[in-house]
């Protein structure tokens, strides 16, 4: 096989993968700009372009309070992320850098927690939060998210921390810094990129959540995932697909931009938490 033929083959394969990743996303974005009368137009580029769908998504008189859902998702995602990082950072550091009795048990527990089926939590939490009067408050959405974001945070951070150069920390310790001081002054600045990557992953995971949110949210605290799943138009039998695609595009585009900018770090984070863990 000649070199040229070989590289042509690679590009064909790459093109297939590219269409796989981008095709449906492109279709969503194109549909978002279509006039509702042309919802099922299958021209592969935008025809009968309108911006009205994006307006309708925010039109509360049509029953779509998507603006509020976006704000809710950011609040829930950010709060979950901050709590998981605060709780998880020291634990990850300790798991990565310190040997202690029972360490295997602790890391095993945290790994199993990351595979735990969230559906088991749903019934007791629904009852508990109903009793406490928390349904419709943000804490009812944020606290359960800790159950899957925290294990992921600890694992990803720990695998990043093991790869940091330990010599600097040793030097700081020899110069008389306490362990916490060494962590805060020497390790934390070094670990900043890893912490940032983990923060993105934690945020995306929390924003993606649907099952808990569906049962534990009320209109006021509904995140985008639930809002999108319930989107209804004037005719209850026909979902307003152009508006749903507009809403979907609005949620996805910031995430896609984030992914494109931090592509390298996100892949490092995913594979660290997954395979290398």
């Amino acid at each position, binding site marked *: 096989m000649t070199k040229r033929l070989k590289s042509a083959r690679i590009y064909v394969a790459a093109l297939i993968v590219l269409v796989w990743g981008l095709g449906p996303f492109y279709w969503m974005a194109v549909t978002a700009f279509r006039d509702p009368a042309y919802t099922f137009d299958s021209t592969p580029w935008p025809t009968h372009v309108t911006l009205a769908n994006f307006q309708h998504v925010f039109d509360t008189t049509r029953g779509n309070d998507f603006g509020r859902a976006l704000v809710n998702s950011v609040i829930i995602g950010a709060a979950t992320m901050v709590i998981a990082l605060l*709780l998880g950072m020291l634990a990850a550091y300790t798991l990565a850098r310190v040997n202690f009795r029972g360490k295997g048990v602790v890391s095993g527990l945290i790994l199993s927690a990351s595979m735990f089926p969230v559906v088991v939590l749903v019934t007791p939490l629904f009852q508990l939060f109903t009793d406490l009067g928390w349904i419709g408050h943000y804490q009812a959405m944020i606290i359960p998210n800790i159950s899957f974001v925290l294990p992921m945070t600890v694992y990803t951070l720990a695998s990043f921390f093991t790869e940091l150069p330990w010599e600097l920390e040793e030097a700081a310790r020899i110069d008389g810094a306490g362990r916490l001081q060494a962590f805060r002054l020497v390790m934390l600045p070094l670990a900043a990129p890893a912490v940032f990557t983990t923060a993105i992953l934690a945020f995306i995971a929390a924003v993606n959540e649907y099952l808990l949110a569906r049962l534990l949210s009320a209109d006021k605290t509904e995140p985008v995932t639930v809002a999108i799943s319930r989107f209804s138009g004037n005719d209850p039998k026909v979902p307003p697909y152009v508006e749903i695609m507009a809403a979907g595009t609005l949620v996805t585009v910031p995430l896609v931009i984030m992914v494109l900018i931090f592509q390298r770090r996100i892949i490092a984070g995913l594979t660290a938490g997954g395979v290398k863990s």
Partner: protein
Amino acid sequence: MSDPSGTTESAAPPAAPEKPARSGRIRLPGSGRAWVFVAPVLLALAVVIGYPVVRAVVMSFQKDSGLDAATGMFVQGGGAGFDNYTHWLLQQCQLPDGSVESCPTGNLGSQFWAAIGITLLFTVVTVLLETALGLGMASVMGKTFRGRAVLRAAVLIPWAIPTAVTARLWEYMFQYDGVVNHLFGTHILWKTDPWPSRFAVIVADVWKTTPFMALLLLAGLQVIPGDVYEAARVDGASAWQRFTRITLPLLKPALLVAVLFRTMDALRLYDLPAIMMQGNPSTRTISMLVVDQVRQGPNSASALSVITFLMIFAVAFLLVKVLGANAVATQEEQRKAH
């Protein structure tokens, strides 16, 4: 899923001052302080996972409140023994007069085994497809060519789109008038016919999750040193031989971990079929059954969620024991390989 290497390490006598350059770890004089650092996480997990699980188990042995047949009065629970479990496993329903008989069709209780079957079908098919397609994708992404970074970024997009959005996107594309029927010139009712709707859910799930699998496999591929392939090529091994004799065995640890992670995810599948197919019972997974039951009877829903948990736990245990997929051991192997 314990960490065998970690346990032996910590059990070793701390007296011998080993070279820290090897392990990259520093020993504490007492391990007490390490526990202080780990405690907040363990405490938080005990609150958000431990407490609800214990409460779910307790609830699963209690009666759901309802009308008492004898008195016609509304009664609150009481002990139920294993009734909530037999309700699902044996599909037994309590009649108003207190007697027990098999659940009528349409009752959620009669859907248990169907939901188990659908969950297992989705799991086996999606994980197999993802592994095959993910391997292909990973090998393309592992090649060096211009624009490789673009490809890796594009592959992340399905992963980054929230599942709820993915579900509605594919729901739209699988409409009767939608682009899928248009592209293939078919007239299939993807949303209502049993097998087409299952097929549609599988396609959407495979689209969304294959990139994640591909990235995990790519990370595994990159650990394999290139000179092994070089040597095999010199010895005249064909591309297929190089794949089966070198790539597969050396990729096995990473592959097994990726399969384990994806299997666990597929077994708890909820968002995608729930949103994409709404009430269509032919795509109802076990997690969907739990959620549908919560408002009807929280205690029997708890029994179902405990059964779900035990099932997933059993599968994880089997995968770890039989296949030898051990995430933590793989981590050590990979570190050594570096």
